[in-house]
């Protein structure tokens, strides 16, 4: 890889507006996490007991899936920096497929929880578990939509090593989705 294409890269990467958006999203989840910590401190036993009922295996698999998909997105950005549009689109497709797998596993988890008769009103732990995982779930879908849009444009050769802000924008958002999960999973599924 030559260094010729690495102009002084702008920071933060991607569109400025997406960063305002990312910070806003992180703020919302941050408030959620703090609220969770506060609520848990009021009723540690209930939280610990309810937590045991969660499917940690599927959560762990989903963590691996999201981290891997983030890696694929990194490859996609690297590809477009070398002007390889099709390769970029393929890496993005791989990330999107993994995101789909995440959605599938998560739905399976929601359905099994639902069939146990658990709802937002069951107790405070489940209120947080369902709220936070569902909001994150919606963000995964949103991220998929963004990645699909970027992939389609990349496929048509809409980006180049000179101009690929769109790819970086999508990648930044996707890393945020990943980051939130990396905190959410241990916080809600594992830590006790």
């Amino acid at each position, binding site marked *: 890889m030559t260094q010729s294409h690495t102009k002084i890269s702008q920071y933060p990467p991607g569109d*400025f*507006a997406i960063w*305002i*958006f990312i910070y*806003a*999203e992180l*703020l*919302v989840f941050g*408030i*959620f996490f703090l*609220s969770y910590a506060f*609520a848990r401190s009021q009723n540690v036993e209930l939280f610990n007991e309810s937590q045991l009922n969660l499917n940690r295996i599927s959560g762990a698999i989903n963590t691996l899936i999201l981290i891997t998909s983030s890696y694929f997105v990194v490859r996609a950005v690297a590809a477009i920096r070398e002007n390889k549009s099709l390769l970029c689109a393929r890496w993005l497709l791989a990330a999107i497929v993994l995101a789909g797998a995440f959605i599938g596993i998560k739905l399976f988890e929601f359905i099994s929880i639902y069939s146990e008769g658990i709802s*937002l*009103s069951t107790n405070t732990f489940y*209120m*947080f578990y369902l*709220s936070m995982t569902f909001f994150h779930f919606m963000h995964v879908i949103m991220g998929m939509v963004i990645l699909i849009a970027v992939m389609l444009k990349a496929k048509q050769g809409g980006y180049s090593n000179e101009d690929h802000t769109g790819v970086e924008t999508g990648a930044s958002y996707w890393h945020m989705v990943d980051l939130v999960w990396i905190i959410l999973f241990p916080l809600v599924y594992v830590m006790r």
Partner: protein
Amino acid sequence: MQYQSQAVAKPYFIAAIGLFVGQIVFGAILGLQYVMGDFLFPEIPFNVARMVHTNLLIVWLLFGFMGAAYYMVPEETETELYSPKLALILFWVFLAAGVLTIIGYLAVPYATLAQITGNDLLPTMGREFLEQPTITKIGIVIVALGMLFNISMTVLKGRKTAIIMVLLLGLWGLAIFFLFSFYNPENLVLDKIFWWWVVHLWVEGVWELILGSILAFVLIKMTGVDREIIEKWLYVIIAMALISGIIGTGHHYFWIGTPEYWQWWGSIFSAIEPIPFFMMVIFAFNMVNKRKRDHPNKAAMLWAMGTPVMAFLGAGVWGFMHTLAPVNYYTHGTQITAAHGHMAFYGAYVMIVLAIISYAMPLLRGRAAGNSKKAQIVEMWSFWLMTVSMVFITLFLTGAGILQVWLQRINENPMGFMEVQDKIAIFYWMREVAGVIFLIGLIVYVTSFFIGGDEEEASS
């Protein structure tokens, strides 16, 4: 004025100001009734005065929004309005409906009004802020749909800017959410849930889009900053407003019989509702710092700068103060709410309408860029009189509210409601004084329209 059809905005703005005066007169009456319970009784009972005060506010703001839309759309889309005639017809329909409704409130008892307007056929009356007879509500829908048709057709044939798309989204949302005022279920919990879909999703949802787009329009015109920069800010602001505002509806669902998780959802999401307002402050001041010209209409600039600041204080800070469920448990429905309501409505919506009027009216009256220096100075005096007195109204009501919460809800020996009202009367007196100063400020404002003098030259 670049397009002939923008002229239809003028009657809308004039009606808005006229009804604004009515609103404040009734506000002053109402404020006095807090401390002199039988003032003007039985001619104007407290509940009627309150209804007139709040309904007039909503109606004149709607006039202002519509006027703003009719002014902005031709200029932004770079084409004449689809039908200026329709806009004028709708103006008279709306004015007649509004005035008749207010006369109805004042002339006959509310129950009689309900009877003669056929409320039993489709009962929608009797709910706070949605007191209008069903027939008036239908009129509002017709006027709103007619206006949306008119401006949507204009947008379809013209240039589509981000500002206009946001404005359209806001106005469509305004019309769509108003439809929930026709849904009036027997179940009180359901009734309240959907009542908030009008009330909250208006002022903490779609109205913010209208506010954002008007502010962006005025800033583009006055500062000459590139459209791309302003539009990017606008997108981010409305995204934040919607992310926080939609689920933020939950802060009204704490104690109405809804499931407990609303206390968390409502608290968490509404806690970030101040952010879009804070961003508006940063946005406005940044744009002014980057300005490429000094617009001669200093008064309009003052309103445009004042809007985000007062909106952030009134809607953002005063809203946050009592939005968390554990706090709201004590403050719900006290004078704290009234304090927040006054400054939020003034800061966010009154000031933005006055900003667009201040910017557009001189042009609508055939002036080059702004009113004469003399007229502007008077208008700026009215800005400070109204804004400062509103700050004091808010502070006095906050004082009243804190004392009320303490005496009535936190104290070991809580007092009854009316007993507490006597104890906090001093705050109500001070609020009334501030209210009268506000009224004086408004009179000064109206006067500024009649001051002549040499016009300001347009700058390039």
